[in-house]
């Protein structure tokens, strides 16, 4: 844990992981600086320019209202990436808390894990649309709904790791010298859960990104007027036979980002799992 720079260097040594890191960095940079990089206003409609094929002035073409798709993708990224990141963070925080408690306190375990099993009996998208339909369609509610969907998944992983760590000799030693339970959990056990937590963080980010796109596509997500990658694909569906680029590019943004996040998560897992060291 002490050597973050070293860890990052080891990660980047694998070419695929390096590529994923570069893709994510470029994505973030263009999302943050989009309004200065791209010549077109993402919201500016120009009916004379509607459904234009990709060209030098519009790299990904224009949509049904003549808006520049490239600048809209990186404008929509604020919502798509923001919702994904917020969901991943919240689900990891709550999931870690629940998983830690369930893994450490046997009495809580049976109850909490049954609840987790029950929550996981609902397919993610299905639970997502049911929750958004109750909460109402908005970016904040999508984050809330998806946090409820993914928290049990994190809890299950963290619980499994906690069960293993709890039995290690050093935990027993710490208890023997009189370390209090909260301190034991926070200082001695939590840091050793960092690898599964980091892996979950990037995977849940990818899943949440895909789920938000799915919800928005179905019309029960952020609301059609907000440009996310999901709503852009949804809006393009009826023009896809004439202007396939309106469908292709926003979807590619989803695929590239989700793929990079999963490659990164896999890389972190290989890096931190001693059993796999030197395997490839």
């Amino acid at each position, binding site marked *: 844990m002490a050597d973050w720079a070293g860890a990052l260097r080891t990660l980047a040594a694998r070419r695929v992981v390096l590529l994923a890191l570069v893709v994510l960095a470029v994505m973030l940079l263009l999302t943050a600086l989009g309004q200065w990089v791209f010549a077109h206003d993402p919201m500016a409609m120009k009916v004379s320019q509607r459904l234009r094929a990709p060209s030098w002035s519009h790299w990904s073409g224009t949509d049904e209202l003549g808006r520049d798709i490239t600048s809209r993708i990186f404008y929509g990224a604020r919502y798509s990436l923001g919702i994904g990141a917020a969901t991943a963070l919240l689900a990891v925080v709550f999931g870690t808390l629940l998983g830690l408690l369930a893994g450490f306190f046997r009495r809580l375990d049976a109850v909490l894990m049954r609840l987790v099993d029950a929550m996981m*009996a609902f397919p993610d998208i299905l639970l997502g649309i049911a929750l958004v339909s*109750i909460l109402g369609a908005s970016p904040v509610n999508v984050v809330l709904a998806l946090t409820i969907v993914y928290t049990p998944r994190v809890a299950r992983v963290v619980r499994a790791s906690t069960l293993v760590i709890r039995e290690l000799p050093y935990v027993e030693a710490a208890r023997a010298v009189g370390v209090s339970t909260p301190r034991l959990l926070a200082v001695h056990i939590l840091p050793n859960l960092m690898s599964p937590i980091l892996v979950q963080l990037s995977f849940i980010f990818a899943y949440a990104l895909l789920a938000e796109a799915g919800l928005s596509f*179905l019309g029960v997500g952020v609301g059609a007027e907000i440009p996310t990658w999901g709503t852009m694909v949804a809006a393009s569906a009826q023009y896809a036979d004439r202007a396939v680029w309106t469908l292709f590019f926003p979807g590619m943004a989803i695929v590239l980002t989700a793929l990079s996040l999963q490659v990164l998560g896999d890389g972190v897992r290989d890096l931190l799992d001693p059993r796999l060291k030197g395997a490839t």
Partner: protein
Amino acid sequence: MSRMSWGTLGRTLLGRLGGMLAVLSLVSVLVFLLTRLAAGDPMAMLLGDQASLQDIAQARQRYGLDEPLWTQFLLWLGQVLQGNLGQSIFLQMPVSQVLLERAEPTAWLAIFSVGLAMLIGVPCGIVSAVWRGRWIDQCVSTLAMLGASMPSFWMGLLAIQLLAVGAGWFPVSGYGDPGADWLTRIHHLMLPALVLGTLNSALIIRFTRASMLDILSEDYIRTARSKGLPEVIVVFKHALRNALVPILTVLGLTLALMIGGAVVTETVFNLPGLGNLVVRAVLRRDYPVIQGALLVIAAVYVIINFAIDVLYVWVDPRVRHG
């Protein structure tokens, strides 16, 4: 098997059964609470704008909505256990009947997709494990991850453009006329199953690979190799047979993914299945339908996983003997 191990087997199975029933009860509580949390009085919604406050109060009494929450839950659960899931507000039909009508396309879609996912996933996973770390393993693993990163609606829309609109090999959408024969039905299901099966093979590839890698490092595989058996026999006869048991257990998980994926895929291809029904019910705020569909889908998932668990206990002596 001795009497002793029958006792252990019985206890294990009883334990699993108890666990399943506990999860099912929790599922029913969650579904009940979920729809009760929904904004708005269900009676006001059922009776429409014309109802007076008195009408609503009477209706609340008739449906037991003035009882405490847990009484309401027990009343509702009693009805559910008798197969009564309530009345669809929009369709004016019993929910159970609506679900039954819509279950067929979803069931076929799930079966075809799981079949295709196995056909792709198992061979790819084996190849990946046998040539671990080589270029073919890297290719398969990257493709599997690509599959897991692709939104099914996006791939569905592209497939429609390419293979239905462009090439004209498949119908663009729908499930054929109401009286269509089974060949027409299958033709309509092919493209959605292709999309859903390909994307979901990713999980089976990963699982097969991990399971094969585990078994290929076992002592008896080394023994088989060292006594000079050809690699083909070692892989297919000794390893694959033992790897298949854990692979089968992932089927339950895949099926759940399929039902979730079907929500989106059915909407893209306009298939009149359960997923499509739920999406429409959500857009129309038809809560009895949402409630019924959630309950049935979650229950099917729990029961399938229980069945696989039991199968696993039967097949694997290590689990059987606890």
